């Protein structure tokens, strides 16, 4: 239900449900800080949160630069995956030939551990931006294409029978029924793909790189600069989180009916 009152109520509900989790996070950091100081554990093994913060702040411009590089790889690879996989899913869902010829290939390729291909990309495309983009693309691509195909094929038989009694054209049916019906599935794939994109970028940078957060991570690790390793991981997680939530925001805007439907279903089961 839209409306300001609804928005206010949902914010209160959000605080109520997330407040506890937030509190536990804060408590965790406090325990961590105190435990490290009390036990006198070595900083290169487990630095306290305060040290991580001060070390990060000293070198935040280096990290920011690396974060920017990695973010670019994530966004470009993910965008490419979306642009390729949704039309491909459409083709597979609506063309008998594409379904018989291409779909089995997609299913087979999906089984290959994509990360194992990363070294091959270095041989083919060198150390620059391209192999990172391709690995992000490859990891995000499969969940999006598979769930989009499922979405486009999910049309309810009775709904389609009803639609046939209206004499609607194929394009009208697609626009008014098949596409909206597919969107929840597509967004499920988009979210899984978004979560994998950050992983893919870091792995690609691990394999061969001279910039980006994955590269920095290996550098700090080699220098036993554990506080900076922690800081880099935190930044990486934040990037992944932002990308994921960006997709979720788009989902809320695109299919508010589905999101609130899920919320109702959840309320009903609680």
């Amino acid at each position, binding site marked *: 239900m839209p409306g300001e009152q609804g928005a206010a109520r949902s914010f209160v509900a959000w605080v109520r449900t997330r407040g506890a989790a937030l509190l536990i996070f804060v408590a965790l950091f406090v325990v961590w800080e105190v435990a490290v100081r009390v036990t006198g554990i070595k900083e290169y093994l487990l630095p306290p949160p305060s040290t991580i913060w001060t070390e990060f702040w000293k070198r935040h411009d280096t990290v920011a630069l690396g974060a920017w590089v990695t973010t670019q790889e994530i966004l470009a690879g993910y965008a490419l995956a979306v642009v390729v996989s949704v039309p491909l899913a459409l083709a597979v869902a609506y063309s008998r030939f594409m379904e018989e010829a291409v779909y089995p290939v997609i299913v087979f390729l999906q089984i290959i551990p994509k990360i194992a291909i990363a070294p091959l990309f270095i041989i083919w495309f060198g150390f620059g931006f391209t192999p990172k983009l391709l690995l992000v693309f490859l990891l995000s691509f499969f969940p999006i294409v598979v769930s989009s195909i499922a979405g486009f094929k999910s049309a309810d038989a009775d709904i389609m*029978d009803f639609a046939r*009694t*209206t004499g609607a054209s194929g394009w009208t*049916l697609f626009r008014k*029924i098949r596409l909206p019906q597919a969107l929840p599935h597509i967004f499920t794939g988009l979210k899984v793909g978004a979560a994998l994109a950050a992983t893919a970028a870091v792995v690609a940078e691990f394999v061969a790189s001279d910039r980006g957060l994955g590269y920095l991570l290996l550098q700090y690790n080699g220098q036993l600069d554990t506080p900076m390793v922690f800081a880099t991981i935190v930044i990486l997680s934040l990037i992944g989180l932002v990308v994921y939530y960006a997709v979720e925001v788009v989902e809320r805007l695109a*299919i508010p009916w589905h999101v*609130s*439907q899920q919320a109702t279903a959840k309320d009903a089961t609680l």
Partner: protein
Amino acid sequence: MTAPSVATAATRIVAATDASPPYVALTGVTKVYRRAGREETRALDRVDLTIREGEFLAIVGPSGCGKSTLLRLVAGLHLASTGEVRVDGRVVDRPQTNLGIVFQSPVLLDWRTALANVLVQVELRGLDPAAYRDRARRLLTQVGLADFGDRYPHELSGGMRKRVAIARALIHDAPLLLMDEPFGALDALTREQIRLDLEALWLATRKTVLFITHSIDEAVLLADRVVVMSPRPGRIERILDVGLPRPRGLDARRAPEFTRATEAITEIFLARGVLHGAARPIGQE
């Protein structure tokens, strides 16, 4: 135009009471489903049936008697294996559009409000939804959903969703209304209320209605004539004139016509083994 020459018991009864012209006519209709690697199933066997213009006709029968198949043949969603289906004089050889249809599940679109779900009917037909907005609101009011036009399906109860589906089948004012076990999933009280509302709606519009149900009471309470079907293969056993005066309120169940019709139908089902008498112990075949 459609008078079947085969003089089955069914057609003779129809002919005897027929006054207005037939709107739907099935002549010698058989429907066989063939699936690869399986025995073919004969869903309907040589069915002759006419529905007069403005008539409320109910088909009652157990599951598997082909009553839903019959409805789909009239809608042109399936085509007859042999025989002929005509609607308004024209042979049905493709999905028909000059009708409204209600299925057992309401099949609403989750992303549309109740009002928009009613209007999707006209949108899919390429008509201007703005021109039908007032009519859609009136229909929602008539089915008791005046205040629920902006609700989404998941915010409505099962009975309300069904009412939206009925409004959607009426919005474009088609002369024929097909209802395939529309009240199947509803609780008894909701069923009773929606039955009364449907009759009021029908009395106001006088559309030709084909109503499929497995409830004997429902068929008798709603219809002008009740077609009794038996399964395997789906066949018309008898066609009964109900003869209950309208409107049939809650006390229609106490009328002698109601008792007579329901007993007659029950007897047919007993004779056909669709129902077993109480004396027969459970488990004895």
